[in-house]
């Protein structure tokens, strides 16, 4: 066995294998390898001794006590956190549902839409549109067709709006105060 062979074994072999015959024989006959082996063995045993001599300064009873109390405290903390999270989630859910339902309750009521046709005797389409816009707003619909005195106004809106349009037409188109020219009374037959 050469020194190189011996050193390559020494590089990775466990200490107890260094006592095997062929290795021991080489080391015994080679002062260099013997010194190197002694260095490795001494330092490695020193390491083992150091590892075995390391000890904790805290008594086991203290460690056990701290472990117990801290474990309990952490358990309480965890339960507290879980409870808090559940409560928060519940509150958030309650608030969200309240907001949603209130939003729905407060939302614009969808009123039924009706349609009615009026005869227009004297108001022009521009006049009717100008007047009805005020009552119908954006939701109602008015369609004017024909020419006075046989014009037709079709209104599609809520009953309340239709009522408003009706009273508007009575006032401006059909009554004595209307802006229409007064009808010429035909002479009564004598």
């Amino acid at each position, binding site marked *: 066995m050469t*020194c190189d062979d011996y*050193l390559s074994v*020494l*590089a*990775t*072999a*466990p*200490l107890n294998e260094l006592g095997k015959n062929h290795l021991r024989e080489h080391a015994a006959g080679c002062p*260099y390898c013997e*010194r*190197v082996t002694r*260095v*490795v063995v001494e*330092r*490695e045993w*020193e*390491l*083992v*001794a*150091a*590892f*075995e*001599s*390391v*000890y*904790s*300064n*805290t008594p*086991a*009873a203290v*460690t*056990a006590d*701290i*472990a*117990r109390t*801290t*474990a309990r405290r*952490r*358990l309480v903390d965890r339960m507290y956190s879980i409870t808090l999270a559940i409560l928060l989630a519940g509150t958030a859910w309650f608030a969200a549902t309240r907001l949603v339902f209130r939003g729905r309750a407060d939302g614009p009521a969808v009123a039924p839409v009706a349609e009615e046709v009026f005869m227009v005797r004297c108001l022009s389409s521009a006049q009717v549109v100008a007047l009805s816009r005020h009552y119908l707003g954006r939701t109602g619909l008015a369609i004017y067709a024909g020419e006075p005195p046989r014009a037709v106004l079709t209104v599609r809106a809520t009953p309340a709006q239709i009522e408003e349009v009706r009273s508007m037409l009575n006032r401006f188109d059909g009554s004595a105060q209307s802006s229409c020219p007064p009808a010429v009374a035909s002479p009564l037959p004598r």
Partner: protein
Amino acid sequence: MVAPSGSGPFELSALVTRSVTGDEAAFVVIVERFKPLVFRWAVALCGDADDAEDITQEVFLRVHRKLATFRGDGPVEGWLYRITRRVLLRTRRKSARKPQTGNPSLDVYTTDPGARIDRQRAVDLIRAIAAELPMRQREVFVLCDLEGRTPSEAALLLGLKDVSVRASLFKARASIRRNMLKSHPHYREHTK
């Protein structure tokens, strides 16, 4: 060199049962039995005695919490080792995020200066391994060469294949011995 694992699994399981049912004395016995082992692992893996104290404390805290889930179908050392390793990695991640402050070698509990020096010297020696070896090689070296376990036992503890443990052990030994011999004049001369 292997740490004592109790007088038998029956006694250990009895201790676990007693501890789970609230017997505080049983838990103290468990800590007394396994604390030296866990502390040595912690020192060897992190290379600092104070950090090792904290890691050991955290390990037994987890042991207390998880004792009820310990099935006892494997060696208790394996279970403890996995907890220790997990705690160590977590501690490392945490300490990597915050800047290091203070003197790590300050010893709060020891009043005997001589003992402190001996312990510090031992820790320094072990720290050298921690500094020069990657984690896996360090673990294998500690379990096999410092604790005297066989590679198969170490493989069981680490959850690795036998062959992986042997390979890591060879690399660890080679690295450690190379460093040991670095200062040796004859060896240096020979390897030139």
